[in-house]
């Protein structure tokens, strides 16, 4: 499923794709998302943190596969679908259970999440908003990638 970037974000805020991981609601701006596909296979590599599962094949191009469930909840996510990021961010993808909705979110609806300290898990969640009475957590994908690079380098 190809996702189009938000073209009219100035009017109603920004488009966010809401998805589930281990039954929790997460989201990120749809402009960061390249594609959603069914999980097929992952090729593990040695010496990676447990939330970097290895390499997946996206049209013959290697993408690193990240398990947000393992990163945030220390529990492996279901291997149901993969959400591939736009290539300009990085050739990386995350495991998700399923897509729930695409919504427009105005900046004033976003509730910033206070960082409790460097390296704390809250640093990969930048904000949240209410959707159908539930909290949806906005993943800071750049911070997740930076965190992986940091941990791999040590």
């Amino acid at each position, binding site marked *: 499923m190809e996702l189009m970037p938000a073209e009219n974000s100035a009017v109603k805020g920004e488009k966010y794709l809401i998805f589930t991981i281990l039954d929790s609601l997460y989201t990120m701006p749809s402009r960061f998302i390249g594609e959603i596909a069914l999980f097929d*296979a992952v*090729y*593990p*590599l*040695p*010496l*990676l943190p447990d939330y*970097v599962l290895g*390499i997946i*094949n996206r049209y*013959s*191009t*290697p*993408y*690193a596969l990240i398990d947000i469930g393992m990163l945030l909840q220390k529990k492996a996510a279901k291997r149901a679908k993969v959400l591939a990021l736009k290539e300009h961010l*990085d*050739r*990386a993808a995350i495991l998700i259970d399923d897509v729930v909705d695409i919504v427009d979110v105005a900046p004033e609806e976003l509730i910033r999440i206070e960082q409790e300290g460097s390296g704390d898990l809250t640093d990969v969640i930048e904000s949240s908003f209410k959707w159908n009475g539930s909290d949806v957590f906005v993943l800071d994908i750049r911070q997740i*990638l930076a965190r*992986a*690079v940091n941990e*791999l*380098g040590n």
Partner: protein
Amino acid sequence: MRFFLCAFESMYVGIPVDTVDSLMVYGKEAGALILRDKSSADIYFSLPLFFGARREALRHGIILKGSAGADGRHVLLVPVVEREEDIPEEEIHTMPGILADIGRVSFISGIRFTDSAMTLFIDPAKFINNILSENPDALQGTHKGKE
């Protein structure tokens, strides 16, 4: 660029031909990730054990160039060297950004997918530096001598 393609359980590992001195028949299981042959001082590295593959017979050893000398030769042990192949550079992708240029996996110089098989291309010199720095006590194992 020419590579020796070594078949593993679920992937291939490509070793640049120009880094290889010669191939040898090995024909045993590796008991450890790194073994030193006491008589020759050669050091053997088991690639399947490194990549977490199941224990299997290692039919071939790849003797690396520039590794002969008082410290012994460096030999990469693989299940089988299946073939030698010329692979165009444009078919080899770099590692994704979060995995590239990171010390621990920087020995992987590229990746290629064909049908459902993945080939990891490795830089043997970086691989050996990496594996020795990750396993500083590993050279205590001994090897019973070549067959």
